[in-house]
């Protein structure tokens, strides 16, 4: 579902990503770990097609987005559920309206969008705040609403940038559970986390761990084609099992 091949991104005089290769298949959760400035956010922006690399290829849903015209990008992005702190929910609207807007872009009619939106909000535990305006919510509720927006409507690729930051353990647990649900439903997921406990819990649940440092993948990126995303025994529980290779 997601293939990143030899991607390099230069930010000023610094290489944020240097020939990074990474793959996340349908039904696979990849957790990207790394310190501050390791390139996690840049990698996720590239994966979500929100940033074009200086070199390399980025394949999403079978298409090389680096070869696409700008006008074609929205159609690729509709397959991507992306959450990042820099992508705010729209003020003056309720959380549900924000989530429905994303579903509308993905082609759902308003009634279906409402249904799916409520479901997504319920999964991350903010159903009670569904009809409240963004301005009246706590920071954590806004964050959870943003995550629900990314997960709503079962996008085929989910990209979450540090979803557990600033969340209570119970909320982080709900987010992980919702994320695993999306993976279980067949989505490929890429998740960066500076929260060690969240990453550890994700790995315990079957996620593949990728270590990024100074723009290089140190471990877990895996040569393309080596990574297995499903249980080798063919079990249909949907639990992700990954063989990390270097």
């Amino acid at each position, binding site marked *: 579902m997601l293939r990143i091949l030899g991607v390099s991104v230069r930010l000023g005089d610094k290489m944020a990503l240097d020939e990074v290769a990474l793959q996340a298949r349908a039904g696979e959760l990849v957790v990207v770990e790394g310190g501050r400035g390791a390139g996690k956010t840049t990698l996720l922006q590239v994966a979500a097609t929100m940033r074009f690399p200086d070199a390399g290829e980025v394949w999403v849903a079978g298409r090389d987005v680096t070869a696409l015209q700008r006008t074609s990008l929205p159609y690729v992005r509709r397959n*991507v559920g992306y959450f990042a702190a820099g992508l705010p929910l729209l003020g003056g609207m309720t959380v549900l309206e924000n989530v429905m807007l994303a579903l509308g872009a993905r082609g759902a009619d308003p009634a279906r969008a409402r249904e799916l939106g409520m479901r997504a909000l319920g999964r991350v535990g903010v159903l009670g705040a569904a009809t409240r305006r963004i301005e009246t919510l706590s920071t954590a509720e806004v964050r959870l609403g943003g995550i629900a927006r990314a997960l709503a409507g079962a996008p085929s690729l989910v990209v979450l940038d540090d979803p557990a930051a600033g969340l209570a353990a119970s909320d982080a647990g709900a987010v992980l559970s919702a994320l695993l649900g999306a993976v279980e439903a067949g989505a490929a997921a890429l998740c960066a986390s500076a929260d060690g406990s969240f990453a550890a819990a994700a790995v315990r649940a079957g996620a593949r761990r990728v270590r990024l440092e100074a723009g290089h993948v140190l471990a877990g990126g895996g040569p393309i084609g080596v990574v297995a995303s499903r249980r080798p025994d063919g079990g249909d529980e949907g639990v992700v099992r990954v063989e990390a290779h270097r």
Partner: protein
Amino acid sequence: MTAVWVLRRTVLELRRQGWSLAALAATFALASMLAAGYRLGAAPSALERRGPPAAGPPAEVIAYLRDDLERPATNKLREALTRLPGVERVALVSGDEALVKLRRQLGERGRLLEGADDGLLPASLEVWLAAGGDPVTRAHQLAWRLQRLDGIVDADVIDARADERAEGWVAAVKQGRTLLLGAVVLGGAAVLVCGALLGRRRRREELRALLALGFTRRALLAPLVLLASGAAVIGSACGLGAVAVARNVASSTLVFDGGLTAGDWSLGLLAAIGLGAAIGISHGVAPDVVDAR
């Protein structure tokens, strides 16, 4: 994105950006009012339309004669006035002539006299005072004395310098009006720019979020174009409507305008409305400023 979603987003944006849209409509209203007001204001005032004053005495006294005053008595009175020191000329003006003269002086407003009887004005003696000394003071003194003469019902003083003073007032009012309108426009523009700068960062983040959701640029723009067009049409209609109302009210109710046209009065009203619009715009920005705290 389907038409249903475009409409839905339009309604959402209307709710979210009500103040900004009101400010936009107010700006269009102000712009259309200024354009229309300028067109009206460019018309010369009643005083300007009259052109330069005809050559005449610096001061003049008009003595209105009693209706039943016989011709010999009138001639006697005229001769007596001619002999007074400082009097240059005395002319007898019939009621009909006075009416024609009044119509001419009123210019466009002469239509107010339509249907008036020929006997509306009494016959009068026009007394021109010679230049030198203070003719206006002398004219007032003469008028005071004439009012007490038998055969004269009233006497008025015509001061040629009064027209000059009125012209000065008209010029001052027009200058003041230009300054006021300029201040309103500059103030409104400053507030709009402030609002745009304050909203820029938030808008950029929101646009990024919507692009990340897969919105095409056309889908992003459609509701905004719909709302902006609506605000422009409604604002302009309100502005032009206000101009039309102000102009009609001014021209139908003001019998004497002190030398100002209906356009001048309209512009005064429009400036006040423009000020209101600027205040409205600043209210639109106020929430951003408060949030920034």
